[in-house]
Structures are given as C-alpha cells and as structure tokens.
C-alpha cells in the first residue's frame, strides 16, 4: 500500500467548494464558484485511479497519524478508485447539463443545487474510501441529508412530501445501522474492517448485528421491500439531481453491504444471507420492471427502472463461491453492473430532463415527433437504454453476461432466468418510450442548448465504451484485497 494525502483531499475539496459557495452567495454566479472545485474533484479522482493502477496497490492515509483500532484510515483500493472515477465522471456530466444559460438569474435555489451537489460528492467519496464502520455511518448521514435536501429543492408540495418520506426511511435505516455497529463494538471492541476481518466469527451476536446493519442499508439502497420512497423522490427532484441520486447515491449503501459480507464476514455462498439478498434482488428485478412498463411519466418509469437495476446488484452475493471472492467473475460482473448502470442511468435521467424542458411535459404516450426535433437527446436515451437492456455493445451487456455466466457456473438457474427475463422486460419499457418518440408528429419544442445535449450523449457513449472491457475477472477490481491491517506507518 502507498501512503498518500490524495484520498483526504478527495473528501475535503468538495467541502471547501461548499464553503466558498456559501460565502460568495449572491456575489458571483454559483456555477462559476462551483466549476473550479468540480475540476479539482475530477483531477483528484483521476490521480487516485492513476496511482492505484500504476502501483497496483491501494492508497492509504491514517488521519492524524492515529492507526486503527483507535484512529480512522482512508483507503482507496481498486474498487474504490473505480467508483471515485465513476462519481467524478457523472458529476462532470451532470454539471455541464445543469449549467444554466448565461442569462439565467442566480436565485437561491440554484446556489443551493450546486452546494448540495458538492456536499453529495464529498459524502460519496468518503463512503467509497472509508475503512471502518463509524466512517461509513458519517458518510451515510452526509449522503442522506444532502440527498433529501436535493429532492426538496423544488419546494412544491409533492417534492416536500417525497423528501419527508425519503428522510424517514433514511433515518430508520441509519438508526438500525447504528444499533448493529453498537453490537459489533460491544462484541469485538474494533470498528476497523481489516481488524474485524481477523477476529469476526459467525456467531449469533455478529450475525444479528450484520442483519440489522444490512436491513438499515437496504432501506437506504431502496432494495425491495424497503423501496417505497424511491420513485416519488427520484421523480420529483430536478432532473440533474435525479441523475445523481439514481446513478450514485443508492450505490454507496450497496457498496457498504457488499463490504460487510465480503470484507468483514465472508460466508460461503450456500448460507442464508447471500441467498436471501439475491432472492430479494430477483423479486425487485421482475416486479419493478413490470411496474416500469405501466408508468405514464418518463421520470417515474426511469425511477422504477432504477429499482429493478438495483436488484441486479444484489444477485452477485451468491455468485462469488471462491475463497477469494474478488477473483470470481460474479464480483467483476456485479461491480461492472454498478458502474455501467451509474453512467447509463445518469444519461437517461438527464435526457428525460431535457425532453421535459423541450416539450413541457414527460408523458410517455405524447412524445411523438421528438425524434426529428431533438435527435441528439433521443440517441443518448436509446444508447443508455441499450445498456439497461443488456444488449451489446454496452457495459450493461458485459455485466449481465458475467452475472449470467457466474450463475450458470454456480448452478443457480433461477438467477440466470431472472437476469434474462429482466433484460427482456427492460427492452419492453425502453422501446415503449422510444416507439412513442419515433412516431410522426409536430410538437411545439422549446430550444435546448446543444452543449447540454452533447454532455448527455457523451455520458451515454461512455456506457457504450464500457462494453469493450475484457470478459474475465478484472485485475483492477482485486487491488487491495484481502484487506491487510496497518501495522505501522511506513
């Protein structure tokens, strides 16, 4: 492992930007204040990814020089570096798309959007590189608070109701998670993942604590049956905010669940917890793909599609049978699904936002004529849909193929069937929207700046480019595993 300050800056830089935004509110346009910090965040994420790949070792920093068990460490491993890069990519795409035309007035709401975007970025970076149960808690709270505020930003009654419901679910989730942390600490007196890995046993106390933490995190990740808050929240947030919420925010609690069951207490695939998680994921895929088909509004349809795609992530738990799960194709497939869904869903929500701006509504049945009037946005929507369906060439195709192969190898036929059925259902709902947009018609279309359409298309093309990742366990995603405890500062 390499000692480096970069992970600390990745968490701190957006917070500094947030302070600058609050100080300069009303004096400068918020976009201009936020832009340099977004650029710095992108630079930091790329440098971390570069360092991790070139040294093939994780970047570590022990805060204040205190080592675990008393101190906290930040550590960007292979998966962490990939997710930092994903976050930066989506944030840049969203920022370009949310960049208001020059004559826009700088209201309080706009300043709030950029401040919350930076707060989210910091929380996400912390969630991806934290190494102990306490830091996870802090990251999750930062994440929930900024996400809830983003949902409520528009101030309408629907948005406030959705935000309140989201907040209540998130709070129930945090308090269950915290209870689990208390039990783990009472049992082992350690909170650091690497330290816990060496002493954790599958006894009733540990299993009960992990179950509590997992249920709490499920409420934040919107896994069936704790999903009720997501569709109204993601559909009533402003489109750029929805893109970040759907693409990134629900992924952080998922990653923590994954780390609990892989890094903290690895169990064999045949035990109950991985099977239950995969079972819930399967129900989510089938149920929410069908519900997505029945939605009248484009944004709600995409929100239900997010619920279904989150289900795919949970399929990976029983598909990592080996002693080193991070070398199994199930691990690569699951992480790739996370990344490709993140990019594709961001592009899709941004496209839906631009469609809403152009037409003044987003009713799926009344999109006729859009293909001729706004072809770039629609192409981006279609490419993102390709990845959700899992058709080649796209990141979603590779991810689903890897999950399918892993399911067949593990003899889990029901998972293979669910993966295939989910793909077909996704095709139905994507084509329903596309078919409506391709119909002849002459709608009144408000102009949307080309650079914003270009940003959406670029994001969608990134999801397409992921389709050229090699079809095998990916060495980058195994960097830094198994976790090693920090003995002393090098």
């Amino acid at each position, binding site marked *: 492992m390499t000692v480096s300050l970069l992970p600390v800056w990745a968490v701190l830089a957006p917070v500094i930007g947030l302070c600058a935004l609050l100080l300069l509110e009303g004096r400068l346009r918020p976009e201009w204040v936020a832009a340099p910090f977004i650029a710095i965040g992108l630079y930091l994420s790329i440098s971390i990814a570069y360092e991790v790949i070139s040294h093939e070792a994780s970047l570590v920093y022990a805060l204040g020089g205190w080592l675990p068990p*008393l101190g906290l460490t930040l550590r960007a491993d292979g998966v962490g570096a990939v997710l930092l890069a994903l976050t930066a990519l989506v944030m840049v795409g969203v920022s370009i798309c949310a960049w208001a035309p020059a004559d826009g007035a700088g209201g309080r709401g706009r300043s709030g959007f950029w401040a919350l975007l930076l707060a989210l970025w910091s929380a996400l970076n912390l969630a991806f590189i934290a190494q102990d149960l*306490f830091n996870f*808690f*802090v990251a999750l*709270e930062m994440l929930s*608070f900024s996400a*809830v*505020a983003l949902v*409520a930003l528009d*101030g*309408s*009654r629907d948005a*406030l*109701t959705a*935000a*309140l*419901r989201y*907040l*209540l679910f998130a*709070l*129930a989730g*945090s*308090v269950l998670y*915290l*209870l689990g*942390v*208390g*039990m783990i*600490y*009472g049992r082992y*007196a350690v*909170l650091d993942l690497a330290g816990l890995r060496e002493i954790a046993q599958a006894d009733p106390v540990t299993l009960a604590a992990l179950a509590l933490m997992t249920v709490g995190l499920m409420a934040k990740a919107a896994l069936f049956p704790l999903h009720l808050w997501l569709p109204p929240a993601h559909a009533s947030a402003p489109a750029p905010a929805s893109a970040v919420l759907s693409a990134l925010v629900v992924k952080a609690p998922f990653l923590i669940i994954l780390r609990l069951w892989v890094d903290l207490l690895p169990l064999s695939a045949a035990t109950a917890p991985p099977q239950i998680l995969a079972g819930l994921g399967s129900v989510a895929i089938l149920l929410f793909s069908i519900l997505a088909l029945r939605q009248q509004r484009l944004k709600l349809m995409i929100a239900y599609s997010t619920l279904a795609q989150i289900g795919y992530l949970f399929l990976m738990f029983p598909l990592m049978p080996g002693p080193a799960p991070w070398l199994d194709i199930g691990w690569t497939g699951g992480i790739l699904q996370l990344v490709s869904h993140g990019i594709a869903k961001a592009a899709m929500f941004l496209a839906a936002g631009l469609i809403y701006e152009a037409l003044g509504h987003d009713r799926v049945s009344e999109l006729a004529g859009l293909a001729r009037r706004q072809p770039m946005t629609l192409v981006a929507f279609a490419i993102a849909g390709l990845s959700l369906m899992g058709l080649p060439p796209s990141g979603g195709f590779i991810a689903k193929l890897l999950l399918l192969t892993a399911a067949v190898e593990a003899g889990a036929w029901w998972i293979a069937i669910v993966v295939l059925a989910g793909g077909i259902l996704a095709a139905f709902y994507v084509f329903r929207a596309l078919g409506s947009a391709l119909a002849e018609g002459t709608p009144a279309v408000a102009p949307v700046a080309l650079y914003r359409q270009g940003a959406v298309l670029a994001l969608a093309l990134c999801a397409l480019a992921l389709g050229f990742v090699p079809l095998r366990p990916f060495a980058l995603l195994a960097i830094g595993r198994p976790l090693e405890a920090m003995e002393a500062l090098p």
Partner: protein
Amino acid sequence: MSATILGLTGALLVGIGLFGLIVHPTALRKLLAFNLVGAGVFLIFGVVARRAAAAGLPGDPVPQAIVITGIVVAFAATALAATLLARLSEPGEQP
C-alpha cells in the same frame, strides 16, 4: 447489574420505537418514534462504554464519541424533518 438494567431499558426503547415507526401512519409520530429508537441505541452504546470499566478504565471513549456523533445527527435529522413538516402544513402552500 445496573448495566444489565440499562441495556434492557435500551432494548425496550428500541422495541417501542420500532413498533411506532412501523405502525403509526403520520409523519410526526414516525419522527418521534425515530427519536425513541435513537435514545435506546444511545443507551446501549453507553452500556458498551461502561463495560470497559471492568478493565480498570473509567469508560471506553470510542462508544462515547459515536454517541455524541449520533446525537448530533439525530438532532439535525429531527430539525430537517420538522422543517419539512412545517412547510407541508402551511395552508395554501401551492407554488
């Protein structure tokens, strides 16, 4: 002995709070129930901190630090939820 009683009280509070969180339909009651669960969890952390006293220490600082963070978070969350509730209950709030 007192640690056992405190622990059981904490568990009871968590139980009552979870019951309220699931059963009550109104948001304000859910918010109060969340605070009950929170109080129970903080009490359990207190018990965990007390157990370090067996090793000759006055108390384990790590659970105490977590409780302080938890209380701040719960307070902030309650304030945020109460603000949202207040905005929702304003008459004629239809922008």
